[in-house]
Each structure stands twice: as C-alpha cells, then as structure tokens.
C-alpha cells in the first residue's frame, strides 16, 4: 500500500512552501516558523550526533587492543567524557523534541504554530550558545570528569571544566523553553474537535516529556552551576575536605539525570506509536493505555533516581524503595510494548525501513528494559555496578531505542518535511546494518560487564580482548549504516521522487496538508471529527494489501 502511493506522482509537490515562501538568509535567522526552527534543530543536532559518534568510534578503536592503541590515558578520559556530554546534552535531549516535536506537534494539533514562536526561536540560539561552549571546552583541552561530573574529582580536575558546565546549564534553558512551549501549545492550540483523547500518541509522549523537561532541568542547572562555582572558587558545597557532601551531588545530579533518560526515550516511544500504526495499517490497540503510560513513566521516573546510588552509602530501606519504583517504569513500558505488538497483530504489515526500525525498537526496548530491571535489583547491581554491563544496558535504551525512534521519525516524516521520497531499498539495507551493527556492538559489552570488565578504564585484561574486538567490529557496521542513511537522504532532498501529501496513507492531521506544508501549515482551519488512527470503522476488517 505504502509503496503504491509513493510512485503516484499526480499528488504533487507544493511549489511555494514553508522553505521558500520567504527568501534570504535573514528569513531563516529570524524565522518564527516552527517548521523552519525544526530544520535548524535538524542540522545542529545531526552535527552533534556526528561529533559524538566520531568520539565513540575513537573509544572503540582505542579498545581494539588491551594496551594503548591510538591515544594516551588522558585523551581517553576526555574522549569518553565528551562522547557522553555531546550525545546526551547536544543530541539526544534536543533531537526528537527539537526536530519532530517542533515540526509535527503544531501540525498534528491543527495549529498554525507553537504557543510562543519567539521563545521557540530563542531556544535554538540558547542551544547553539550552550553547544558552542561545550565545543570550546573540548577544543581548549577537554573535560575528563565523565559526563556525570561526579564530585569530588570534578571539583579538583585541572581540566577546563567551567565552560562545559556553563554549556550544560545553558542548554538546559533551551530544553526548558521547548518543554514549556509544548505544554502550553497542547493546552491552548488544539484544532476544533481535537479533544485530549483524539490527540496523536506522539503528542501525548511529547507532552509527558515536556513535563520532565520543565520540572527536572532547573535542578541540573543549579547543580552544574554549583560544581562550576566550586571548581573556580572552592565553595566546598560538595567537597568533603571542606565539610561538603559528595553524595548530595549525586542526589541532585540524578534527580535530573534519571528523568532525563525519559526525556530522551519518551519522544521515541511516541514516534514508534505513530510508526506502528503506519506499518500495520490498523487502528492502534489500547490508545488510552499508551497515552496514560507515558504520563505514568513521567511520574515514576521522578522517584527512581536513587537506583544509581546503591553503592554510595544509601540505606538498605532507601535502596529497596528506589528499586521497586524503578521496576514500575518497566511495568509502564511493558504496557506500551504489549499494545504495540497488539496493534501489529493481524495488521496489514508493510515491509519497509520503517518496519525494521519498529522491530528494532521493540527488541531494544524489551532487552534494554529487562536488563534495566536486572540492574535495578539491589543485590544484582552490586555485581554489575560500574561495569560494561551497565554501559551496555543504558546504550540499549539510549542508543538502541532512542536512535530507532529518531531514525523511524526521520524516515516517516522525511517525505512530509521535504516533499520527496528516499530510496526504500537502500533504506532497508541501512536499517538492517544499523540493527545488526548495534547488537554486535553492545551484546559483547553485556558479556564483558558480566565477566567483570569495569567501565571507563583505559587498560583492560587480555581475557576481555576478543569481545572488545567484536564490539569494535559491530560499531564499524553501525557507522557504515549511518553513512548510507546520510547519503541517500541527502540525495533524496533534490532527486528523490515526489512523495505526495500522504505517502503512507495515514490519518493524522499532518498528512492532510500538502508536502511540504505551506507557511501557515493548513489552508483554512482543519477540524477533527473522529478518533485518531481510524483505519477501519467499527466492525470493519483490516484490508490486506499485498505489496
């Protein structure tokens, strides 16, 4: 079905669209259009992803041999710190809300723009300033305290840590502005007939994410500033030699940084909810459950931070409580997985790159989630704490699941954003490479961690050699996959076949307008008359389409 309409060229391409309605560089620099802002985020976060990815590749190459391979120990410390900081603060947190939240949320709601377009533009520039500071910190010697900036080492390291912390603080503001904007947009700018229970699930997920962005980010802001002030002036807030408490730092840090995992993964879950319906051509199963479980994850996510501190002198009672709350996250995630699989069951499944990403996501989120339950178990965590097992676990969620969401979003909405289609064959090849490469990279790391290889160590024992080589080989596959994606997408920007306004045959409002959309999104005010994802009326059977 999907491919049938891809080749249908008669649907056309809107010649005067949001990208060329106004011309000149200033029309981009000062734009208030959420779609253009989304494209700015697209470029910026993809550059960040490239930097973070190269740093990751450098780490993997360093670990090809147990001893020194291509860099010294100090450089290695800086590489893994910057990889974490860039990937988390510059790529994963802003990526899906910044690109697809901005682009799709107003379209999905039938609005002309987000509630505060000027704040939206400001968020891009605030992000750029923060990212610039982080890049400056890298260029001027780098930061070696790990992305977690744990005290007391972060207070005494000779590295130029202050600009990096200021960068984190400033990027946080950008995240707050985005979240605040989306919450108010959802409350005030829904089209007539778009009730809460008719909102697309991506909107629900973005709304849940925004709550975390608004409530948790200020805390990392003040924490980063405290560490920065201490590093410069020695206030002693977290410094045990001056009567401070380094565990207090860990509490304040994880109060943000654990919910931040859900800032990264919830939007991807929203994307997958859309994509599951798109590839199954069937009404979504358990709409309300998927919608509410996003809010559930938001809520319990705020009370799970202590599971990072089982070995930091926390009382057994606290650890037990945090462990149980952490497992509740697994319950809400399982509800989602159940409903996604229920949607696919007896659907008319389209075989395309989108399906590959959906399946990849389901595998990664289940596998990463199950190992998450395992490390949330206090007694097991004592064994795995600070080993590669933990590294592999959170990469399954934060790279596996989040990246599947990002890639699914790119592939699903690319025709809407640019009005053209990419090459489906190459897309499937790349998707297969990425899913396989990812598994090849991180499954060995589970084994390494379980065998006792600690994370963040420069040297490792020779018995870990083979699995490290396997992991590096996997990361190379992953890298090749991304290069292919970049090539066919950039090619499709100019030379791809015309996509038409609704290449996947979907029901969302964003597919009712032209591709690419006009400057003001819709011609006239759209209205909503039925529930989302109504592919079949009540009692109607799924029409199976053979492709």
């Amino acid at each position: 079905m999907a491919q049938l309409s891809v080749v249908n060229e008669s649907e056309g391409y809107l010649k005067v669209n949001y990208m060329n309605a106004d011309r000149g560089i200033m029309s981009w620099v000062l734009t208030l259009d959420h779609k253009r802002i989304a494209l700015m985020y697209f470029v910026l976060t993809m550059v960040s992803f490239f930097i973070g990815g190269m740093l990751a590749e450098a780490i993997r190459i360093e670990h090809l041999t147990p001893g020194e391979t291509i860099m010294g120990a100090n450089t290695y410390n800086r590489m893994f710190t910057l990889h974490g900081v860039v990937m988390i603060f510059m790529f994963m947190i802003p990526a899906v809300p910044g690109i697809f939240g901005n682009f799709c949320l107003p379209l999905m709601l039938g609005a002309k723009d987000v509630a505060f377009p000027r704040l939206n533009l400001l968020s891009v520039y605030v992000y750029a300033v923060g990212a610039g500071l982080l890049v400056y910190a890298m260029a001027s010697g780098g930061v070696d305290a790990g992305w977690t900036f744990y005290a007391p080492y972060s207070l005494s390291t000779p590295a130029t840590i202050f600009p990096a912390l200021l960068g984190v603080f400033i990027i946080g503001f950008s995240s707050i502005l985005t979240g605040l904007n989306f919450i108010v947009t959802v409350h005030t700018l829904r089209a007539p007939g778009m009730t809460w229970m008719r909102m697309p699930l991506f909107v629900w997920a973005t709304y849940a994410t925004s709550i975390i962005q608004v409530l948790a980010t200020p805390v990392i802001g003040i924490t980063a500033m405290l560490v920065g002030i201490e590093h410069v002036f020695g206030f002693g807030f977290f410094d045990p030699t001056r009567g401070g408490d380094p565990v207090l730092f860990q509490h304040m840090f994880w109060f943000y940084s654990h919910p931040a995992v859900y800032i990264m993964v919830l939007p991807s879950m929203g994307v997958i909810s859309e994509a599951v319906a798109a590839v199954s051509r069937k009404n979504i199963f358990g709409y309300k459950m998927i919608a509410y479980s996003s809010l559930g994850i938001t809520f319990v996510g705020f009370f799970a931070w202590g599971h990072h501190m089982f070995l930091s002198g926390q009382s057994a009672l606290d650890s037990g409580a945090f462990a149980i709350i952490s497992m509740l996250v697994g319950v809400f995630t399982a509800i989602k997985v159940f409903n996604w699989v229920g949607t696919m069951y007896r659907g008319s499944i389209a075989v395309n790159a989108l399906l590959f990403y959906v399946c990849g996501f389901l595998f990664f989120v289940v596998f990463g989630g199950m190992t998450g339950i395992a490390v949330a178990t206090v007694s097991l965590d004592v064994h795995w704490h600070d080993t590669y097992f933990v590294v592999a676990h959170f990469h399954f969620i934060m790279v596996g699941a989040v990246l599947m969401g990002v890639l699914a979003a790119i592939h699903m909405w690319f025709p809407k954003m640019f009005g053209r289609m990419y090459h489906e064959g190459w897309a499937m090849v790349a998707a297969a490479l990425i899913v396989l490469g990812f598994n090849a990279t991180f499954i060995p790391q589970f084994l390494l961690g379980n065998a006792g290889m600690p994370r963040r160590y420069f040297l490792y024992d020779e018995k870990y050699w083979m699995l490290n080589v396997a992991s590096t080989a996997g990361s190379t596959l992953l890298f090749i996959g991304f290069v292919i994606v970049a090539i066919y997408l950039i090619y499709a920007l100019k030379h791809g076949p015309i996509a038409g306004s609704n290449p996947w045959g979907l029901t969302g409002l964003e597919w009712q307008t032209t591709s690419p959309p006009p400057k003001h999104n819709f011609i006239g005010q759209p209205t909503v008359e039925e529930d989302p994802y109504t592919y079949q009326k009540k009692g109607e059977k799924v029409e199976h389409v053979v492709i």
Partner: protein
Amino acid sequence: MSSSEAHQEHEHPWYLAHHFDNIKVQNYAVRMGMWLFLGTEVLLFAGLFLGYTVYRYFYPQAFEECSQLLSVGMGAFNTVVLIGSSFLVVWAYHSIKHDQVKKCAWLLFLTIVCAGIFLVVKYFEYMHKIHEGQLPGKMYTFEGVTAPGANMYFSIYFLMTGLHALHVIIGATILAVLMVRVMKGKYGSHHNVPIELGGLYWHLVDLVWIFLFPLLYLI
C-alpha cells in the same frame, strides 16, 4: 471593504499573535507559560534549599551561631521593603486595569526604587561580611565561629542571597521595561496581561526572600 477591514482590526489587534484565535486564548496561554516558568524558578532555588536543609542537619551548632552574626535589623528592613514593593506592583496592575496610565508608571517606578533600596542594603551587608573574611571558599579567613561547618553556612548564605539578588536585578529590569511601555501608552484596560506577568515574577522574588529571611537570619 472598509467595514470588513475594520472588523479584521477589531478581531486582530496588535497584541494578538496571528496563531491565536482570540485574546482570551492568548491570555490563558501566556498566563500558563508564566506559571510554568515560575515553577522552574522554584525548582532552581529548590537545589539550594535542599543544600541548606542537609547542612543545617549536619552542622546545627555552626548554623545557629553563624545566623546570629547576621544583622536582623537590616534583614527585617529589607523584608519590609520587598513586601511593600509587592504591594506597589499589585497597585500598579490595579491602576492599569482602570486606565490610570500615569499612576501605573509611577507605581512601577516606586517598585523599582524599592528594588534599588534592597540592593543597597544588601551591598552594605555583603561589604561587612567580606571585611570580616566570611566570603566562602578560598577567601574564607573568618575565625569567629569555631564549630565545624561555619564555612558551609557562609557558602550557602552567599549562594542563596546571591542568586536572589540576581533575581532582584532581573525583576527590576523587567519592571523597568514594562514602565517604559506603560508610558508609551501600550497598556490599558483592554490589554494589561504583561503587567500581571511582570508582577507575578516580582512576587516570586519577594516570596523567595520571605523564606530566606527566617532561614538565614532568625533561626
């Protein structure tokens, strides 16, 4: 033609953004945005309040002795100044709602004066502390309180009051911008939400101080 244009004018005055249907929705949106923003401000301060709680629990004696070194008189004076200024800003909002433009501008001006008085008093307090060697961190040379954790009290004192003073400066700047716009005649009974939001921000500044004063000066 001209009547439909006039109708358009009526529907979309200058202060109504193009993507909102009517002023009611826009006002709802900006109020909600402001309250969310105030929530983030509270959470920003919450990190420091948490630190205060933890270290007061760790070092009760030092905190008690150190708090007696602060000038309750100056603190109380500043508290009265800030609460008074909050009253003034509400009065300013009330007057602009009744189209009393001049009065509103004057009241906003007086609010900014209060902010200035607060900062001057704070400056003298800080100068005294710096003179005594109570600046925290590497500059700490004070030996008047020997109980462990005295330096931590002053770290927290300077962090909390410093962040608050920064907010006083930001708040006064916002009110100054609003005052200029009031004098230009941009607001009146038809459009006064920006004054309301500026006032809300000023109340937050005031409210934080109402917590800081007893925690740092009195107990």
